[in-house]
Structures are given as structure tokens and as C-alpha cells.
């Protein structure tokens, strides 16, 4: 049979982000996969060199829509290490709390996407509905759903009150119950197993060879988790397990993420119940003495590593960011080769490549040269009116 090369992306309904896969097909089977990236390159490392440490915080937050807290925490750990700043214990605990809430948010989102890609859309509807609970927690604590902006130089920007704590625990209790149902579903539902077992195989040796990170590596039996290996923030005081699985396939990745949710809920409760007293931030000098350091962090998708070099001014000399998806894409190439075309979206989704979402919009009107900010209520009203004009009335739905 002759070989055909099919471009998959950069714009493709199954991809949430621009990336391109050149698939060489023999019939329905993939014999070769090439990955092309860079469609989303925004020059952030260069931009960081022209901004102060505090401005960079907001830039770095926008590296990723979901791991926003992961990137700022890695960055701020580096800055604080170079500035030799003693971050208060309470601030570290609040950062850890956000890190785990973010992991819950990201894993629930992934469960939904995986459900969608495997043709199980009810799972997608369920998990995304439940994900709203954790987004509510984040909004309750920080005022924002996606870019929490909780970190600042020397600590965090907002403290946690007793009411907020109660609100978070209430929602987490609900999520624990729901997650137990998802775990049961992942382990017992035959259609899930049939669609995901033996798809996108990544044996342990290959995972090590290709530097896989995070749940992708852990589903290949590689117990690699920065939270345990080199505890940062307050992870050395928390009681949790590193979840691994040894089926090396999409099914394993599903199980690892579902079980990690439970560990995260455990940690969130531990942190909230033992929140250390004290200040939440200390003052840090804006000019940072020359030095360099490197720190890593377990983001929801795996190890996130930042290198930072300071030069005595208030701006960094060099900042390097490596997000987990880049580390995992070399493994995707392996997973795709030898597989089937119909499995491609599922395999790609299984490493959880990043995407972002938010429910507030800014509309720029070039004719009037004006900016208009729409909130949730206004957007809702507009959409109801839009449908009314087309003869459908949604206004009775509350």
C-alpha cells in the first residue's frame, strides 16, 4: 500500500491549540509522525528581560491559562531565592493550597476532554459541571477564576478568612463524592476500558529515554513527582501518595489523574485545617544582587522548570521557562507511531496539552476606537437577545 502524508493541524477541530502533526499513513495505520511547534510562540523570555520582577509576575502568569499559578510560583521561588527573602510560612501554605486547587481544576478539565475525545460526552458534561465548583473556590479565595494573581514578591496578596475556608471545604466535600463516582466509572465501565486500553503505548524505558514528565510518566510506572522528590512550598509536611500505574496507555493516564484528584482533596483539607498563623507577605528589595538559580515545580501536567539570572538591577538578565507539554511532546511522537489514525486525538489529549478559558470578555471596537468590558450577566443577556431574534426564547431559564 502506498504511503500518504496527512497534515493534522495547526488548525484542526480535535486540537485545542495550534500545533501541527505530519502523519505518514499506511492505510489507517501511522508509520511516522513529525511534530511541528511554534505557532504559539509569543517571545515571553525576551519580553521578560525588559520588565521588572514585579511586572514579570503578570507576564509569567499568562504563559498558560491553566497552569498560571504553577508558572508564577516557580518564577517567584527563583526570585525569592536570589533576593534571599524569607517568605512567611502562611504565604507558602496559601500558595500550596492554590497549587492543589489548580491541579483539581486542571485534572477535572482533562477528564472532560478525555471523555469527549473517547466519545463519552456525558462524562465531559459531568466533569465540567463539577469543575465549576473548584473554579468557584478559586474565585472565592482570589477573586479570579483562571489568573488568580495570588503571588507577589515576598508572599501572597490575599489572606484566607474562616468563611472562605468553610466555603472551600463544603465544595471539596461535594467534589470528593463526585470523584469517587468517576474513579468507579474509570475502573469499571467497560466502554471506557475498551476505548483507552492499549492506546498510545509508552513503555517505561521510552518514557525515561524521552524525558516524559507528570501523569504521562507516572502512567508508565515512572514515580517521578517533584512534590515528593524535591519538596518545595510545604509539601514535606503534607501526607500524600505518588500515584503510578503500569499499563503505559491512555487508560493508565486516566486512572492516574482520577486518583491524583483524591490526593489533592486530601492535601487541600490538610492545608486549610493547619494553616500557620502569621503575616502573608514580607517586603522585598526591588533590586536583586547578581546570581542565578534554577527551580522546578510539579504542575498539573508535570515538571515545570525555570532558570533565572539576575544582574543587580530590577530586571532579570535571563529567564528560561520550560513548560511540561514541551517535555512530553517527544513522547507523543512515539505514542502515535504504529497507532491508528482514529486514536490520534485521544493520544494527543492524553498528555493534556494546555488550553485556556475564562468567562469575561473585552471587545475592541476599531471603528469607535473604544474598549467595552462585558461581565457575565451582560454576556448572558446578549446571548438571550441574540437567540430571541432567531425565534428561540431562553429568558425563562434561570
Amino acid at each position: 500500500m502506498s504511503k500518504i502524508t496527512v497534515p493534522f493541524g495547526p488548525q484542526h477541530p480535535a486540537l485545542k491549540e495550534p500545533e501541527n502533526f505530519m502523519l505518514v499513513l499506511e492505510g489507517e495505520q501511522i508509520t511516522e509522525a513529525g511534530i511541528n511547534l511554534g505557532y504559539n510562540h509569543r517571545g515571553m523570555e525576551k519580553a521578560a528581560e525588559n520588565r521588572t520582577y514585579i511586572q514579570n509576575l503578570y507576564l509569567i502568569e499568562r504563559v498558560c491559562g491553566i497552569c498560571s499559578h504553577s508558572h508564577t510560583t516557580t518564577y517567584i521561588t527563583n526570585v525569592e531565592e536570589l533576593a534571599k527573602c524569607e517568605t512567611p510560612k502562611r504565604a507558602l501554605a496559601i500558595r500550596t493550597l492554590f497549587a492543589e486547587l489548580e491541579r483539581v481544576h486542571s485534572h477535572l478539565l482533562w477528564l472532560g476532554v478525555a471523555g469527549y475525545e473517547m466519545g463519552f460526552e456525558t462524562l465531559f458534561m459531568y466533569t465540567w459541571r463539577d469543575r465549576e465548583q473548584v473554579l468557584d473556590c478559586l474565585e472565592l479565595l482570589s477573586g479570579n477564576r483562571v489568573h488568580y494573581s495570588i503571588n507577589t514578591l515576598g508572599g501572597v496578596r490575599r489572606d484566607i478568612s474562616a468563611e472562605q475556608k468553610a466555603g472551600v471545604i463544603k465544595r471539596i466535600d461535594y467534589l470528593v463524592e463526585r470523584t469517587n463516582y468517576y474513579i468507579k466509572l474509570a475502573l469499571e465501565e467497560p466502554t471506557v476500558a475498551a476505548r483507552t486500553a492499549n492506546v498510545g503505548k509508552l513503555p517505561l524505558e521510552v518514557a525515561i529515554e524521552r524525558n516524559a514528565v507528570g501523569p504521562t510518566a507516572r502512567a508508565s510506572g515512572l514515580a517521578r513527582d517533584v512534590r515528593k522528590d524535591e519538596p518545595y512550598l510545604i509539601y514535606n509536611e503534607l501526607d500524600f501518595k505518588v500515584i503510578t500505574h503500569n499499563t503505559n496507555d491512555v487508560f493508565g493516564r486516566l486512572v492516574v489523574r482520577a486518583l491524583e484528584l483524591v490526593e489533592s482533596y486530601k492535601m487541600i483539607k490538610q492545608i486549610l485545617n493547619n494553616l500557620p498563623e502569621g503575616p502573608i507577605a514580607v517586603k522585598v528589595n526591588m533590586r536583586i544582587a547578581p546570581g542565578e538559580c534554577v527551580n522546578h515545580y510539579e504542575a498539573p501536567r508535570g515538571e515545570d522548570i525555570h532558570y533565572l539570572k539576575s544582574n543587580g538591577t530590577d530586571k532579570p538578565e535571563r529567564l528560561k521557562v520550560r513548560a511540561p507539554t514541551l517535555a512530553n511532546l517527544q513522547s507523543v511522537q512515539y505514542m502515535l507511531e504504529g497507532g491508528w489514525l482514529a486514536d490520534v486525538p485521544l493520544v494527543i489529549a492524553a498528555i493534556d496539552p494546555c488550553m485556556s478559558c475564562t468567562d469575561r470578555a473585552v471587545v475592541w471596537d476599531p471603528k469607535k476606537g473604544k474598549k467595552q468590558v462585558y461581565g457575565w450577566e451582560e454576556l448572558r443577556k446578549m446571548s438571550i437577545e441574540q437567540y430571541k431574534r432567531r425565534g428561540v426564547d431562553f429568558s425563562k431559564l434561570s
Partner: protein
Amino acid sequence: MSEFEKEEKIKADLEKKFQAANAQVQRKARVWAEIEPAKLPEAMAWLKAEGYNHLATVTGFDEGENLGAWYHVTDTHLIVNLKVKTPRANPVLPSVLKTFPGALSYERELEDMLGIKVEGLPPGRRYPLDEDFPKDEYPLRKDWKVEEYIAKNPLFKPEAK
């Protein structure tokens, strides 16, 4: 320094086997050292055999007279940072793909963003810059300025001011 036994050992080994310069144990779990570019592939293979089997990333840098890169190798507990420098006039570094096949995109980034030629890199599409980005401009070099690039390209009009 019995506290940092593992760190001191790797530092001593790097100094003995690969004549590493400026080697230092910065703190717990961080070792920094500088080696000659020619020794890089060998040093990486040795580190991998020692259990440092995860190349976390490669950071390219511009120090003025020299360009270069930091190779951050880890066993997930301890990060070994190896620095290699290469003259700006003719920047060349050897590839480490034989030892770490996962380093492909990191090495392409060195070529694209800093203009360091990586010997042994297979042909392929550039990463991360756009196909029509000038081939002789390297954005992460310190003498490359965003303003100049925008000024040179009349078609490039940033929307926001």
C-alpha cells in the same frame, strides 16, 4: 560537608573526569559547573549512566563575547547544571541527542533563538520561530531589539500602543 555528600561527590567527579571549572555546590540539590564544549556529549553520557537520566531543559544565554548554554540534568532529586561557552564569532556546540533524544526541541531552540550551531542536529523545520522570520536574526541575543525589528518591518503594525 557531610550534609551535602551526594552533591560534593558529583562535583568532585565532574572536576576529576571532565576538568570542570568553577564547580560549586550552591545549596542542597544544586550543583553548577562549567566544562569545555568538546567534553559535553561524554559528560552527558556519564551523567545519564550515573542515574541523572532526565534532561530537564537547556537554557541558552548571551554573555557578550561568548554565547553558550546551561544543560540542566537531574535525577529529579538533584539538579546538575552544566555550562558550556562558545565564541560569539563562530558559535558551535555539539549535540547531545545521542544520549538524550528528548533534547531535540531544546537544541533547535538554541539554533533559532541564539544562532548557536548545534553539530549533529538532524535536518528539520525550525522551532520556535516562524518560517518567514529572518534567518540571520536571533531574538535572544542581547543586541537584538524588538523596537528595531518592528521599525524595519513596515507591515508589522502592533495593534496596542
